């Protein structure tokens, strides 16, 4: 398994997310993407396979592949309504937008040359692509769970860039970032639980009382 294969898998999972109509499937796809990306730090810098890298990679895999899907499935179970994604825009339109985003990412990536040596020239475009897909998922889906998934894809994109480009970041910072993301998803999970109870529903289009 090399870096390019991982990046291709990331592109495929992103496109699958845009086309998927089932929430459960989407959660599993995001989990798979998280696990695959967890392997990236060990492969991107082959010489730097220290204890620090392995610990962080394992922590990231455990969170994204285990804890997050568990939290989100729990939130989903509490709301025993339909398991549809309920998009504002159709699946085909989403996919087309995804393809456009992919093209745009390669265009931007070509204009931002990395001064240092990196594992694969695909890293920058694919990281940008994940970020765009994450934003797209957040604005085009009604479900609170879908929006959290969008946030996770966005974060995966940022993570891809960070791991692929930065040779070494400090342990403290990486662990802190991981902790923040964990708490963010945890707090969002609790909020979704409260939204279920308050509205008997997890559609965020019900959240529309406050406006000017």
């Amino acid at each position, binding site marked *: 398994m090399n870096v390019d294969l991982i990046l291709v898998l990331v592109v495929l999972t992103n496109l699958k997310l845009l086309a998927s109509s089932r929430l459960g499937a989407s959660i599993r796809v995001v989990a798979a993407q998280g696990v695959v990306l967890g392997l990236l730090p060990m492969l991107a810098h082959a010489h730097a396979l220290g204890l620090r890298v392995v610990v962080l990679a394992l922590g990231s895999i455990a969170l994204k592949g285990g804890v997050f899907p568990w939290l989100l499935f729990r939130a989903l179970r509490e709301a025993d309504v339909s398991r549809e994604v309920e998009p504002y825009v159709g699946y085909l339109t989403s996919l087309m937008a995804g393809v456009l985003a992919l093209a745009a990412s390669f265009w931007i990536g070509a204009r*931002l040359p*990395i*001064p*240092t*040596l990196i594992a694969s020239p695909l890293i920058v475009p694919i990281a940008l692509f994940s*970020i765009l897909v994450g*934003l797209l998922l*957040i604005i085009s889906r009604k479900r*609170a769970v879908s*929006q959290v998934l969008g*946030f996770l894809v*966005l*974060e995966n*994109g*940022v993570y891809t*860039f*960070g791991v692929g*480009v*930065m*040779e*070494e*970041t*400090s342990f*403290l*910072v990486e662990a*802190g*970032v991981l*902790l*923040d993301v964990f*708490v*963010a998803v945890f*707090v*969002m999970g609790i*909020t979704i639980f*409260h*939204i279920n109870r*308050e*509205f008997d529903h997890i559609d*965020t289009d019900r*959240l*529309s*009382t*406050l406006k*000017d």
Partner: protein
Amino acid sequence: MIAALVLIPALAGLAAFFLRSTEWRRTLLVATAAAQAALTAACWWLRPQPVLHGWLALDAPGLLFLSITSALFLAAAIYAAGYLRCESGHRVTDEEEGFLFDNAPEATFVGCLMVFLSAMTLVTVSQHFGLLWIAIEATTLASAPLIYFHRHHRSLEATWKYLLICSVGIALALLANFFLGVSAAKPGGSAPALVLGELVQQAGRLQTTWLKAAFILFLVGYGTKMGLAPLHTWLPDAHSESPSVISALLSGALLNCAFLGIVRVQQVCVAAGQAAFGQDMLVGLGLISMAVAAVFILGQTDYKRLLAYSSVEHMGILALGVGLGGAGAFGAMLHAVNHSLTKAMLFFVAGNILALYQTKTIGQVRGVLRVTPVTGMLWLGGFLAITGTPPFGPFLSEFTILKAAFDQGHGWVGGLYLVLLALIFIGMATAFLGMAQGQPQKAPGVADRGDRWWETGPPAVLGALVLLLGLYIPQNLAFVLHEISRTLGGS
């Protein structure tokens, strides 16, 4: 000493989750706030040594924003202790729609409040950009449960918007951190340390393309959190639905923390000779924020939302001042102090009015001056201060920024700034004067209880400070403000 500043509130916050006695928990809150404020005050005389290889250090901007945060938190802790005594132990009637709701458990509220303080302190002392990011994200997470203190659907909606919009913004700021790292990387060399001091020292060899891209992302990311229009959409909701104590802290302390993030990046840009690039964008966003705020302030019907939009306006003024650089940056830093004190005071008073009248609608509040003279006077004083009327502090800082705009030959920026300030003054005057004057239409239910000391004490002290800052700026403060404006392209 720096470690103590961060750890004391964090540990006290954790302890608050487990304390069983409500009384002790409130005492702990006020004691922690007082200890933090005392330590911060000591830092003005004894600048603490950097720790963790210089990752945590207290420089001039950090000291200024830490002082604002600590002072406001002390006021808020005293107010909150009294507020919780009134709110706890029974179901509360919603003032807008009349249904009953529960409050969040008090242990969660007090615990999160102190963790929030710890996170904000960490923001002010972080010299490492990665650490700064972690701290700013932590402030979002610690404050989300605070906004959802009143457990009903409107505050839930506000919390969700706050969490999602700010998390996305901050995720973009993380990307900006990596961009900054790329711009600092030596070709084939070792990894760079994203410590402010080192970046400023080696600013000459930063890659400008990546630095500019990083600046844009930082501005979008931290700008979302700071409430710069058009990224401000979470702000009015969160401020109007959270308890007034929390609104005061969000507006007076949290927005400043995000602003500090932008100031740090601008420091690097200035050192790298790219000052003009960031300055244009800051001036633009600042004016847009003021314009958006003016539109929503004119004809606003909810007085807490009015104050929230006023925060958008003042964040715009801060961005504008830093964007002008030099004397403008000096004015912006002074304005950060003035705005925080004034806005926190106004939110406390707004909380008092809400408790008395049980409504947030401006049109239904009449005759505050007759019902409770002290609260009414504070409300009027706060109005004069926040709109930049002499002799209050904000007049001085807003005038400094105006003068900087004209002195630097940005005539149209200065003109537009004046017009927007005038519009906002009209909008605020209509709302505030109508509320203070007149005959109370319906007799407020609790009018006979009089003012409680914890309701009027903290805002009165803050108001007095604002007045004092308008008349006299202490030597120490002026020194720190000059030090900051030097790093932002001043002379």
